[in-house]
């Protein structure tokens, strides 16, 4: 009985010493805008954030980003959304073009019946400026109509052009995932 009492004291001590701290995985980077980590090649179009947790009836915003582009002067982006679960509240121009020297032309069209959004952004004029790198093309505000998962997917007709209006090949597309509770 006495030995048992000592063991009762001893066991927690041994357990205390047996615990070990966890070291997180090295590969934790999954920012969709980190061109070193994305699975697709650049130039690419993606949504940021790529996963959104929200509540049914709640609003959220998602940005359309272009990654690793060189000398882009215009873009046409089309993507689909689940019209049964999401409703578009607004579409706003992103910072990629607005941060440039020249103000861009920004036109967006929402086809709520088919769940499609078209976004045109471009600089006008023959000596138009261009942008390079990674940046936001547009910000879209949605309302989650009902609970459930839905995706945002780019259409293959999307295109990027340089200042000579020559197309820039889009090598990758990211998806957006909306989870409404």
């Amino acid at each position: 009985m006495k030995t048992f009492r000592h063991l009762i004291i001893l066991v927690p001590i041994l357990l205390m010493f047996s615990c070990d701290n966890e070291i997180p995985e090295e590969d934790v980077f999954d920012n969709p805008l980190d061109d070193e980590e994305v699975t697709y090649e650049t130039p690419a179009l993606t949504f940021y954030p790529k996963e959104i947790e929200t509540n049914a009836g709640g609003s959220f915003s998602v940005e359309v980003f272009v990654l690793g582009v060189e000398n882009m002067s215009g873009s046409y982006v089309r993507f689909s959304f689940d019209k049964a679960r999401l409703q578009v509240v607004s579409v706003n121009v992103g910072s990629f073009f607005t941060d440039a020297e020249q103000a861009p032309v920004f036109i967006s069209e929402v086809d709520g019946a088919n769940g499609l959004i078209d976004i045109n952004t471009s600089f006008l004029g023959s000596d138009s400026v261009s942008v390079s790198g990674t940046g936001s093309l547009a910000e879209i505000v949605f309302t989650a109509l009902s609970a459930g998962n839905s995706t945002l997917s780019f259409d293959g007709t999307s295109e990027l052009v340089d200042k000579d209006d020559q197309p820039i090949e889009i090598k990758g597309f990211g998806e957006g995932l909306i989870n409404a509770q």
Partner: protein
Amino acid sequence: MKRPLTVFIFSVVLMGVVQAQYTSLNEETKSMIGEGKKTTAVLDFEARGINEREAKTLTDRFSSALGKTNKVILVQRTMMKEILEEQGFQQSGCTSDECAVEVGALLGCQYMISGAIGKIGNSYTIDVKNVSVESGATENSQSSTYAGPKDGLIVEIEILAWLLMNLEPPKDLLDKQKRGAAAYAPGEKPKTKVGALMRSLVIPGFGQIYSGKKGSGFAILLLEAGMVGMAAKSNNDYLAFQTEWNTQLSNYNAATVPSEIADYKILVDQARSDMMASNDQLNLFIYASAGLWAVNTIHAFFVGPKPDDDDEEASKSSPFQLAYSPLTNQVKLQWEIDL
């Protein structure tokens, strides 16, 4: 010729005294005599290797135990002493059966018990015998050999009192015999190697402190505390770096500018490296601490308290001693100093 006459006169006087006392005895004593219990006196045991004071103390304890057997009517030792002193009889020199019979006749009792306590090496021997005064024959004799602290002799001699009366010693006495000297230190359990081991198992160094090795005990305790402290510090560092890692990972995930993304990635990686370093350090101190804990436990066992088999050495180390005084019938704290 003069001496037998003197003995005769004193015997008559003693018998008169006994008779006088007998008439004033209470009913219980009368019934004891009526039951055929024999009057018995106990001579001081001969001391051979222990001092006489201790021998007298043990004789007194033997007499007490003998009284508890309820088989004899004991002649009071104080009375016996007075009578023998009046007779000019040196009890200490009375070791033979003949002498015991002579004293018994002088006291007017039926039986005389004498004995000797000797020491050979680390062992003690106790021999007691019950001699009939009338016949001079040894009615019964018992002996015991004992190795251990001197305190244990008390139990041994009490048991012999029962055995000499051909009785089974009480269970509590036999239990005391098993426990040894510790039976006389209530509240203070005997120190054992296992006790030291268990204490060191629970708190490092405590086993050594328990065994009296305070230097090594406190050194181990401090060392262990230092290691546990360093382990705790490493763990705190780990937690701080973990918080940093979480913060920078959140920043990375929230970043939309490529340069910021790259910067935050570096910070996340740095925090992770720091976490690993802290965790490695934590493990190092934990293993070192556990190792020291284990070594301390083994050490506590091997340097644990040893049985006090040489209590004379122990008595030399301390000038204070507990001793029974038959004069006051009390245990006294004595202080001795060599001049």
